[in-house]
């Protein structure tokens, strides 16, 4: 990175954080600290919900998913529209009517104190771990690429987000997210435009799509009914709806965003904004990865995108076997490129049979190159020691670093950090709020004044920020980063959703039955996760269904009519 890149990066990060602190100075009451000033318009809520979900991992790792696996990953988001409509119709009006600070306060009203604490504890465990990943994921990728010290990057970015989130509370999160998502969109659109401009001049739009489709990169929808396939239409629509319903409906980091609206209308429109925009947004990011794949068919790609592997190759240049892998890979790529150039020419000349023959030869050469890459990957020390040297997370950043001009590099690195800080700040704000309201004021000090709660909330926010930094410093991930975050969520979210589904829709079940049902269902999900090989998208559905069914069975066994009020009558 050049001096210009550092100016863009540091200037934007510090500028936004400083503006957030300045804009929210003087927020002293518990209501304004946790809810904001209740004047947030729908567009700001919509951007805030989007920024909270879309972390740096989304923008770093998703193009790599598109490069390696094509558009199929978009199916995970098929559940978003339906889930957000359900939340807008059923969840949001009740959260607003009760004027709760956290979603788990509602469980306390509907059931009892122990169920409220269980819901809050499930949130704190999974979101506390997730917050560590949110800060670790971009740091590991960026420090590997740029050679920055990992620990220092984690600590600096972690402390920055702690400072402005502690200082300004919920409003600081919303205010900064607006500008952070602006930087993210500016960076991604710039990268997209420059990438399109860098594609070979003779390659038309339909040529590009035909080439990507020929390599199976445009297989966006898979109607397979196999539960072992990770991304299918059905796992996305059914499993994805439950995953998204759990995330948006029961995760305090999201609930806190949309209950802070000026009215029910603002919250609903903010959710509908995301329901409409989420699939096209993810499609665009994946398409970016597919276009990078097309770009690298005409430009020599590195044998490995992961710099650690590349550095190993350089350090062991004397190893004839490794040198042979690199030479063979380059040769296979050159052969594939030559055939693809012939394919483009044949297409433009209208010679279908020559085009088909050229593409078949190019596919064979490409396949050969991938086999060489896989064989070379097995020689890497990370593979030999059992760790995974995942290339997907490094594809986009490698492209940025080697193909884009200075200034734009700084803008995109700023976009990654902006994404990390925006989701991180919302998570810390939610963790601090939940610990204060559901544990400190509910269990430890019931007569705490609002002023004491604000101080406690600031302390808990800082505490969770430090926990996240500590977790990030010692985190070692086994899979692609974005999948690791989604898998972690899917293990806990189903049972959390089950608690809320029973609360909203099953009147006869009381607190004791649902509490033990949730404990049993969470145990079941853990057992299934470690013993089955089904797609992780199914676990929210399984956890939710198990919680609802078991609560009905336990309630029947207890043999008593619940005295709890139905959700619609809770007040």
């Amino acid at each position, binding site marked *: 990175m050049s001096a210009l890149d550092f100016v863009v990066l540091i200037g934007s990060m510090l500028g936004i954080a400083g503006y957030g602190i300045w804009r929210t100075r003087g927020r002293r009451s518990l209501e304004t600290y946790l809810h904001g000033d209740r004047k947030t318009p729908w567009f700001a809520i919509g951007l805030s919900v989007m920024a909270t979900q879309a972390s740096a991992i989304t923008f770093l790792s998703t193009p790599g998913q598109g490069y390696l696996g094509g*558009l199929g990953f*978009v199916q995970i988001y*098929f559940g978003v*529209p*339906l889930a*957000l*409509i359900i939340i*807008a*119709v059923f969840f949001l*009006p009740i959260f*607003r*009517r*009760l*004027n*709760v*600070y956290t979603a788990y*306060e509602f469980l*306390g*009203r509907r059931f009892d104190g122990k169920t409220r604490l269980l819901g809050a504890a499930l949130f704190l465990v999974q979101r506390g771990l997730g917050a560590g990943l949110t800060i670790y994921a971009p740091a590991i990728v960026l420090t590997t690429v740029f050679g920055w010290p990992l620990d220092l990057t984690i600590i600096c970015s972690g402390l920055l987000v702690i400072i402005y989130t502690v200082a300004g509370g919920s409003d600081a999160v919303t205010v900064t997210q607006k500008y952070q998502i602006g930087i993210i969109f500016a960076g991604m659109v710039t990268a997209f435009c420059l990438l399109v401009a860098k594609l070979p001049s003779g390659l038309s739009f339909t040529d590009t*799509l*035909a080439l*990507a*489709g*020929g390599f*199976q990169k*445009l*297989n*966006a*929808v*898979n109607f397979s009914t196999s539960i072992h396939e990770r991304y299918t*239409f059905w796992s996305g629509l059914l499993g994805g709806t439950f995953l998204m319903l759990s995330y948006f409906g029961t995760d305090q980091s999201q609930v806190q965003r949309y209950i802070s609206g000026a*009215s*029910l*209308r603002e919250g*609903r*429109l903010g959710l*509908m904004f995301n*329901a*409409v925009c989420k*699939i*096209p947004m993810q*499609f665009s990011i994946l398409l970016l990865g597919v276009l990078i794949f097309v770009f690298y068919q005409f430009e020599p790609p590195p044998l490995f995108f992961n710099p650690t592997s590349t550095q190993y190759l350089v350090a062991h240049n004397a190893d004839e076997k490794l040198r042979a892998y690199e030479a063979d890979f380059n040769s296979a790529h050159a052969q594939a490129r030559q055939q693809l150039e012939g394919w483009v020419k044949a297409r433009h000349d209208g010679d279908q049979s020559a085009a088909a023959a050229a593409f078949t030869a190019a596919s064979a050469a490409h396949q050969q190159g991938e086999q060489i890459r896989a064989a070379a990957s097995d020689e890497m020390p990370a593979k030999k020691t059992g760790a995974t040297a995942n290339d997907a997370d490094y594809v986009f950043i490698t492209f940025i670093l080697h193909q884009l001009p200075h200034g734009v590099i700084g803008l995109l690195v700023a976009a990654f950090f902006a994404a990390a800080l925006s989701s991180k700040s919302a998570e810390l704000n939610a963790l601090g709020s939940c610990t204060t309201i559901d544990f400190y004021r509910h269990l430890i000090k019931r007569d705490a004044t609002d002023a004491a709660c604000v101080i406690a909330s600031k302390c808990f926010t800082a505490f969770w920020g430090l926990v996240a930094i500590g977790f990030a410093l010692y985190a070692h991930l086994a899979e692609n980063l974005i999948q690791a975050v989604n898998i972690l969520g899917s293990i806990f979210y189903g049972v959390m959703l089950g608690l809320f589904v029973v609360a909203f829709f099953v009147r006869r079940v009381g607190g004791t039955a649902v509490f033990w049902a949730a404990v049993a269902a969470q145990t079941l999900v853990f057992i299934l996760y470690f013993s089955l090989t089904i797609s992780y998208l199914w676990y929210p559905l399984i956890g939710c269904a198990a919680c609802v069914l078991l609560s009905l069975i336990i309630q029947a066994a207890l043999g008593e009519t619940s005295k709890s009020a139905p959700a619609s009558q809770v*007040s």
Partner: protein
Amino acid sequence: MKHPTAAESSESETEATGLPFFHSWKGVYLFVLGSFVFWVALLVALTKYFS
């Protein structure tokens, strides 16, 4: 525990959307589902046509 304010209690399903083309929430939700169907159809077409 805080109690709902009068302002929040008055919020209901009949609250106006304030949007130029969608005067009811039902219309907004149908538009969202319609846009979902549009994107899925587009992605299916992309899959079928280019694979």
